[in-house]
């Protein structure tokens, strides 16, 4: 059988519309008789609140202000747990939680009207450190326990291995929150069709999940909801949770006119998830030849105010914390924890991106202690065909890590080792300044 796609260079079907500016992203769409929505968001990380929208509603050009009581069905959504409120009813759990949506004849009127909504906050004790949040006396974000998930691996006998080890390296590594900053900020349009079908057009990664959550919030059947996914201006995991979809749907049904919402960059940062900040405490042991003997690790991921994909992300982090290395004795405790921080969810790598910060530094430091070079120690421990991972998975297919390492070593050997007598930062600055001068001369 001949392949038409695999191994061939295939032109993108949407290439032409994208290079000509013809591709339609949600903010590029417009419908007749359209209204615009703007979201009021919490400025407190943890608070009870009451809201008075009367003044805003009386502004000329404002057709209404949605609050939690306008959600006709269940006021909740979420990819795993339904722990988000579509519009918060009386309590906010993070800065940026949606509290009301102004619907107006123009974007400017809607924006201006946000200032006329009166909010009275009663601040609650908040917690921003996941270690603190795990303690019994910590303020609770949802329910009775802030620990969303605990993943364990118990393989072999780590304590015995540590006793027999020639070298042990132990330290704590931390990775911060990261925003996807996809280039197209959230935007969308919703309208009711003649037969009552509610259509929501929004750039999304999960049209089917969106439909399920919108149907739930609207108290409608999924068949009555239609999701259209137009051109999507980047996502990288950041469009897996809902943002404006339910707001659009509720407003379109209530006001019987098409509704458009467009976030600016600042609101985009407030609205969607981040990469989980993860703290990884690792204790790694090796014998005198550099063969890994044991890893004991405690991983704590801060999922912020909402769980999103925390379970999957911290499970993956727990699986990947061994690195691509055979380790006979492994003990992993990986936790996902609620705090009042921005919520974390899917982002490029999904929990596999953070662990290398820890396991690769551990490898370098073990090598250093044993006087080995960093390549040799990795080669000695790499997964190969037939290796068993810490979760007892047997790798039966392609495992080309050795080849990858060979290529890396060859590439690194092409460049001379740094000369201790050169101040590289100063040198770089000098060379850049020179280049800049030349570039300006040529192009300005």
């Amino acid at each position, binding site marked *: 059988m001949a392949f038409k796609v695999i191994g061939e260079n295939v032109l*993108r079907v949407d290439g*032409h519309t994208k*290079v*000509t*500016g013809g591709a339609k992203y949600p903010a590029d769409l417009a419908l007749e008789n359209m209204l615009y929505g703007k979201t009021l968001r919490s400025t407190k990380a943890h608070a009870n609140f009451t809201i008075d929208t009367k003044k805003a509603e009386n502004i000329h050009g404002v057709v209404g202000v949605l609050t939690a009581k306008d959600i006709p069905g269940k006021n909740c959504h979420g990819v795993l747990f339904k722990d988000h409120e579509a519009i918060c009813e009386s309590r906010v759990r993070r800065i940026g939680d949606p509290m009301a949506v102004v619907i107006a004849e123009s974007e400017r009127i809607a924006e201006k009207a946000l200032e006329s909504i009166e909010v009275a906050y009663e601040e609650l004790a908040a917690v921003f450190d996941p270690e603190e949040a795990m303690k019994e006396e910590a303020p609770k974000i949802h329910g009775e326990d802030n620990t969303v998930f605990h993943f364990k691996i118990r393989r072999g006998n780590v304590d015995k291995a540590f006793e027999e080890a020639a070298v042990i390296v132990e330290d704590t590594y931390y990775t911060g929150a990261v925003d996807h900053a996809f280039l*197209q900020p959230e935007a969308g349009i919703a309208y009711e069709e003649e037969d009552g079908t509610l259509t929501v057009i929004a750039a999304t990664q999960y049209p089917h999940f969106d439909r399920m959550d919108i149907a739930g919030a609207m108290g409608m059947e999924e068949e009555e909801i239609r999701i259209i996914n137009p051109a999507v*201006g*980047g996502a990288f995991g950041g469009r897996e949770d809902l943002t404006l979809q339910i707001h659009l749907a509720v407003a379109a049904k209530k006001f019987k006119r098409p509704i458009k919402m467009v976030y600016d960059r600042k609101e985009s940062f407030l609205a969607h998830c981040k990469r989980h900040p993860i703290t990884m405490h690792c204790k790694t042991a090796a014998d005198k030849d550099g063969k890994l003997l044991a890893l004991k690790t405690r991983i704590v991921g801060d999922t912020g105010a909402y769980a999103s994909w925390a379970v999957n992300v911290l499970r993956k982090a727990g699986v990947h914390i061994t690195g691509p290395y055979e380790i006979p004795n492994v003990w992993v405790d990986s936790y996902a924890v609620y705090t009042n921080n921005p919520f974390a969810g899917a982002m490029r790598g999904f929990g596999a991106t953070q662990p290398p910060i820890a396991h690769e530094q551990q490898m370098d430091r073990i090598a250093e202690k044993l006087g080995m070079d960093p390549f040799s120690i990795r080669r000695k421990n790499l997964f190969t065909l037939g290796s068993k991972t810490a979760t007892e998975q047997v790798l039966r297919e392609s495992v080309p890590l050795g080849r990858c390492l060979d290529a890396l070593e060859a590439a690194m050997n092409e460049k001379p080792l740094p000369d201790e007598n050169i101040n590289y930062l100063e040198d770089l600055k000098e060379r850049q300044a020179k280049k800049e001068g030349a*570039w300006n001369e040529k*192009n300005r």
Partner: protein
Amino acid sequence: MKTINLKINGRKRQIEIEENERLLDIIREGFHLTGTKEGCGEGECGACSVLLNGKLVNACMIMAFQAEDSEVITIEGLGENEKLDPIQQAFIDTGAVQCGFCTPGMVLSAKALLMKNPTPTKQEIRRGISGNLCRCTGYEKIVEAVELAAKRIAETD
């Protein structure tokens, strides 16, 4: 309210503007040329890049009134009739387009560069598009596309 005249994509147009409107607003909402994108609204991302009197600008950083009597080229104004500009074609051919949201700005940025410097080095291309962010991080292919476009333009001249 104020009425201004300008030439946009080769056509003379007149438009009523508000004092606080940006060039980006009149391009997208006034002329419905939605190929020009808004990514950040503060001149960081380059998604709204257009050519103003032949010079590359961020349309979110120019007030509409500043465009009076000017000539503006947006992504819709590139190429002739149905024929794509060589830069646009090169972006398709090299696979330099992913989500596409940075593409119009990238193409115009490349256009501005090649107008001044038809034979740029890789380094000069990188420098030329340094005001445009691609969050899909497809920079390698974009640089290749600009190289290919420069080569093709040189061959036809």
